[in-house]
């Protein structure tokens, strides 16, 4: 799969929109899932994901051979999310939208799911991004550190604290914490 990404990236760097289209198909799910968890608002997450792919198209020439495409995309997406949060200055309002959106879109709102969403909305943005990548998307700490441009130790600490807060919100007694 990594090899396929590499060949698609090489073709896209040579100007192939078809190869880029396949990269979009392959990576839209993890990127959108990450952005949904990071920013909470599904519609905004999808807008950010589209902007991320547009930026990726412009910067594809800078992607080094062998680099993780999904980490690179999540990094761009995260920066776009932070820019949106800073420029709008309304993270708190977004968290409210997050919850309202969830209440409306979940078919069978499980109590745990709602508790998790509320707990996620209350985490600081950096912690939420680390949790979204490492606990929900199977990123290694190193990969998340690269994607989010954070020191490895900071990522580990964010994941550990975020995880503890989520489990506490779920009422799970974790022996490791």
């Amino acid at each position, binding site marked *: 799969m990594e090899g396929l990404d590499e060949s698609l990236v090489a073709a896209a760097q040579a100007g192939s*929109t078809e190869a*880029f*289209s396949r990269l*979009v*198909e392959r990576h*839209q*799910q993890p990127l*959108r*899932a990450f952005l*949904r*968890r990071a920013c909470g608002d*599904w519609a905004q997450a*999808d807008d950010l*994901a*589209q902007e991320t*792919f*547009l930026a990726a*198209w*412009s910067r594809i020439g800078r992607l080094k051979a062998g680099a993780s495409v999904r980490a690179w995309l999540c990094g761009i997406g995260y920066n776009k999310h932070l820019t949106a949060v800073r420029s709008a200055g309304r993270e708190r309002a977004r968290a409210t939208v997050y919850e309202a959106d969830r209440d409306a879109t*979940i078919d069978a709102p*499980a109590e*745990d*799911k709602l508790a*998790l969403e509320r707990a996620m909305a209350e985490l600081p943005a950096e912690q939420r991004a680390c949790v*979204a990548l490492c*606990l*929900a998307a199977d990123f290694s700490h190193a990969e998340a550190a690269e994607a989010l441009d954070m020191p490895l130790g900071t990522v580990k600490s964010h994941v550990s604290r975020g*995880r503890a807060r*989520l*489990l506490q919100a*779920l009422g*799970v007694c*974790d*022996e*490791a914490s």
Partner: protein
Amino acid sequence: MRQADDRLKALFAMDEPPTRDTAFSTAVMEKVMRRRFLEDVALLCGLSVAGGGAFWLLWPALQPVVVSLSQGLAPALSAIALAAGALGGRARSALGLES
């Protein structure tokens, strides 16, 4: 610990977007193609302006050459144009394209 992580993961997985989402991919590629088109147009406009500017700057030097060339080549080009017209007419007749 593993059980708690699995539970978190299962809850997170409930709002995963679909593996394939044609509408989303199409929307992205439409934007990419639009941007590419605008970049191409901007490049062509830039080249046209640069070419026009260069031609305007060089025109005083080019004008005598163009004039002398056109005067020298005018008879030959006229003959070629006449011959091409005549051959074209005969070919159309031979192919039955003329009414």
